């Protein structure tokens, strides 16, 4: 482990000032499942951990009429342990449930998954299709950024010096809609996604009135696939329209070859997963799953 100092923040303001004071080499410490390993393997230059788990807002889950706000440092096991989140935003809890293993989920957070900004991060496509918003605090006060616009490059995001994510909101899904998330990994657990996919659909009978598609691990950041939505919106559901959405996903995927997957494999999986996830989302929209 490189020399890293540890400081505990107990309020948002304190965290902002510690982060600002620490400069470019200071990092929030949420679950630490990315950042501790990165510091140990000297893969990222880090001087200071600011532990954000003792800030009340960061550890709270609050439900209201508009949806839910999840503190950025709430560990995943509490996210999928919240029955309301599971029933209303299953796409997110599906992802939360398979990030790492049980011991990782005891610590890892949605905030950390988002801010680590890996192209393969599992929860991000799920949050993207659910219109999630990140609430950010920083030296210049607060601002909100859609999760869709959050990541800018592998390991990079919109956060400026001294800024951090306080919480993430998921708006209440309208009736008749459904979301789902899936990934492909070679093992059944403990693997980084070769491709992952989030889908959300709004149905009116057999017609799709709205849809959102997102893919991970097929581009430098998780991406939205508007073309897949266009292939579906306003059309009746059929194998053909589902396949068209899958084809659009495949076309939108611009993956790289790396040790976890090849271009050919990933493009193909983008289609397969999009279609499978879409079918699952449709079942949910119909109240069947």
């Amino acid at each position: 482990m490189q020399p890293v100092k540890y400081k505990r923040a107990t309020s948002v303001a304190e965290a902002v000032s510690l982060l600002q004071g620490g400069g470019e080499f200071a990092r929030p410490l949420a679950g630490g499942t990315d950042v501790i390993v990165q510091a140990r393997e000297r893969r990222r230059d880090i001087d200071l951990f600011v532990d954000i788990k003792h800030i009340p807002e960061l550890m709270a889950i609050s439900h209201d009429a508009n949806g839910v706000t999840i503190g950025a440092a709430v560990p995943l096991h509490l996210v999928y342990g919240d029955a309301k989140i599971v029933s209303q935003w299953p796409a997110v809890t599906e992802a939360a449930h398979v990030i790492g293993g049980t011991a990782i989920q005891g610590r890892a957070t949605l905030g950390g998954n988002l801010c680590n900004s890996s192209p393969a991060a599992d929860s991000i496509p799920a949050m993207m299709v659910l219109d999630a918003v990140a609430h950010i605090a920083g030296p210049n006060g607060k601002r909100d950024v859609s999760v869709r616009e959050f990541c800018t490059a592998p390991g990079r995001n919109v956060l400026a010096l001294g800024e951090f994510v306080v919480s993430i909101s998921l708006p209440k899904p309208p009736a008749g809609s459904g979301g789902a998330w899936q990934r492909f990994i070679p093992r059944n657990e403990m693997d980084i996604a070769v491709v992952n996919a989030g889908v959300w659909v709004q149905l009116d009978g057999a017609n799709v009135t709205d849809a959102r598609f997102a893919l991970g691990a097929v581009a430098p950041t998780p991406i939205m696939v508007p073309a897949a939505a266009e292939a579906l919106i306003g059309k009746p559901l059929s194998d053909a329209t589902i396949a068209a959405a899958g084809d659009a996903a495949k076309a939108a995927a611009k993956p790289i070859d790396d040790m976890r997957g090849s271009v050919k494999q990933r493009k193909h999986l983008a289609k397969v997963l999009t279609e499978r996830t879409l079918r699952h989302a449709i079942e949910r929209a119909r109240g069947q799953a």
Partner: protein
Amino acid sequence: MVSTEKPRQYKVVGTRPIRPDGVDKVTGRAAYGADTKAEGMLFGAVLRSPHAHAIIKSIDTSKAEALPGVKAVVTARDFGAHAGGGVVDLGETRGQANYMQDNVLANHKVLYHGHAVAGVAATDQHIAEDALALIDVQYEVLPFVIDVREAMLDTAPILLDDLRTTVRAANSTLPTDKPTNIALHMSLEKGDLEKGMAEADVIVEREFETGMFHQGYIEPQNATAFWNRDGEITVWTSTQGAFSVRDAMAALCKVPVSKIKIVPMEIGGGFGGKLGVYLEPIAALLSRKTGHPVKLWMTREAVFQATGPTSATYMRVKMGAKRDGTFTGAYAYLAYEAGAFPGSPMGAGAQCAFAPYNIPNQTVEGFDVVINGPKTAAYRAPGAPASEFAVEAVVNELAEQLEIDPIELRLRNASKEGTPNTVGQPFPRIGAVEVMDAMKSHPHYASELTGEDVGRGVAVGFWFNGGMESSSSAAVNSDGTVSLILGSTDIGGSRASLAMQLAETLGLTMDDVKPQVVDTDSVGWTHVTGGSRTTFAGGWVAYELGMQIREQMRERAAQIWEVDADKVTYGDDGAIHGPDSKTMSFAELSGQLAATGGRIAVSASLTKNTQGPAYAGHIVDLKVDRDTGKVEILRYTAIQDVGTAIHPSYVEGQIQGGVAQGIGMALNEEYIYDDEGRLRNGSFLDYRMPVANDLPMIDTVLIEVPNPGHPYGVRGVGEVPIVPPMAAIQQAIYDAIGTRFYVTPISPRRILEETMPD
């Protein structure tokens, strides 16, 4: 399920007692190598090469040495003279001392990514790691070669300037006087291959490649060494062979063996990968320089980069059979990479390849080739999984072409007692036929496979099993218990299996025997725990100790009763019987030993060069997801001739563990190198060993065909279960989706890319 050929009544053998070291291992008290703590101990770290192949132009350690807390830095220079070309016996493998030394710390060249270059000792682990960044090594990067076939080309970069091809093949055309990467070309011939092929009605010939697979033990290599001012060296380490480590240390540090004591700590898995030395000499050199004990352990990444893997191979296998299924001829071409220094397990692979079958005409040709990868180490049935995968896959194809049930085809050709093996020696009593019969009649084989894209595959496997030298001693305690002192390190229950054999011999219970593994100063020379030899050879010694104790107990009872010793018998109930129904229990007599001539202590060293070959037959059902290429194992049955199952639970466990490793090799495990020869996936996240929810329960059937060369009929059980999975799974995937794969692992990516429409 246990099926016994000729039931023999044992009291302890065949039961399932709780192992003697169990409680310490479930309470966290058991001391493994990295748990070592010594007064004044320093912490070490090792700097490793970022390049696959480079000349070390210079190493500047001054900045590192200047870091507060750093006590010493060592490089290859600290070995002093270069070790000679003498051979160190590592049990399942051997190593030339000079190569071993160059592997431990690179001399003038680094030969693979992760090759150790320097070691640091500091007062704190963090400081030792910080110091690594301050060591300035200048490299001249050289072209590298990782693929075995490329390494064999004349144009390949040469790794070792002094290496020349050793030829043990009649018709070799390879030069023996030119620099090369081919360390050995050998061939084994029996009968007349051409004639055999001419007699065949059907011939199948296929090419195969298998990857590098790591043993994947969960405990990284470690060593703590103290080089005392009087020149005595003590090393605490997790090793499969305390005595082989001592020999290697002596050769590398140029110290007589009498000055070295190896204390074997609990060992967190080895599978062949912990036979050699890696950190022990570095820790010793650091200790000599600092005067303190120094502890080192490897990062997981270093374990992948610089230890372990088994050889990647390129193979061609050709087999011919008559219409009725009789095998007439067989040829195998086996090229095994050895990593950066010679010594792949190709020879064992060659001898195992056709061992399950009686094939009169056969030739096996083999090559041992160096590449810019980690020096390969033994891995469970070293060499056999690859060559037998190729042969079994060809046998399955022959069965299909001949339209003969694949198990039936194997039965028709099965090796039996007396069948000459590949080197012409007749097999002793073996259980190949029994295993194949059991496969055929197993309900799994008869069951119906249902569902889409599901398939079934079968394959068999063979492994010699080792014997070799073991030593132990035993002492009778006054309360009627017996202390058993073992030279074999225990990697998975051998304390239990050896204590059980002594208890059986003495007619005592398992609780009456207290086994303990001791250091190299405290017991006679003992070969490594490997080659499935420990329960076999160590059991021989335990039996011998038991017989000596029985004899002495008899004599002692005779003295007490004042009768002739030949009037006294030692009963299988563990009691001593004299004339006139005189009888004394073992415990009673033990209590009187001190007062009647002294306590009894015995020792024995035996070399057993007999083999108790093992056969295994596996049946697997699986399902392929055609859209993703993912394979799900639905059902797995492993049938094996285990000789006698001393502790059936641990025999089953060995089989299940071997199967799981074999499944990993077949489906997902692989070494991935980038364009610069750097290992990309040196972590448990990306070197994908099976996790708990990747596997079903693994059913085992223990066939007991006792080994006539052992008092309890023991055959080694640990290695052969890793042999059949690759071929069985390859066949099952073909059965499911109609595509045969000749390259492992058969990963989702490979399946998808092969079967996907463009």
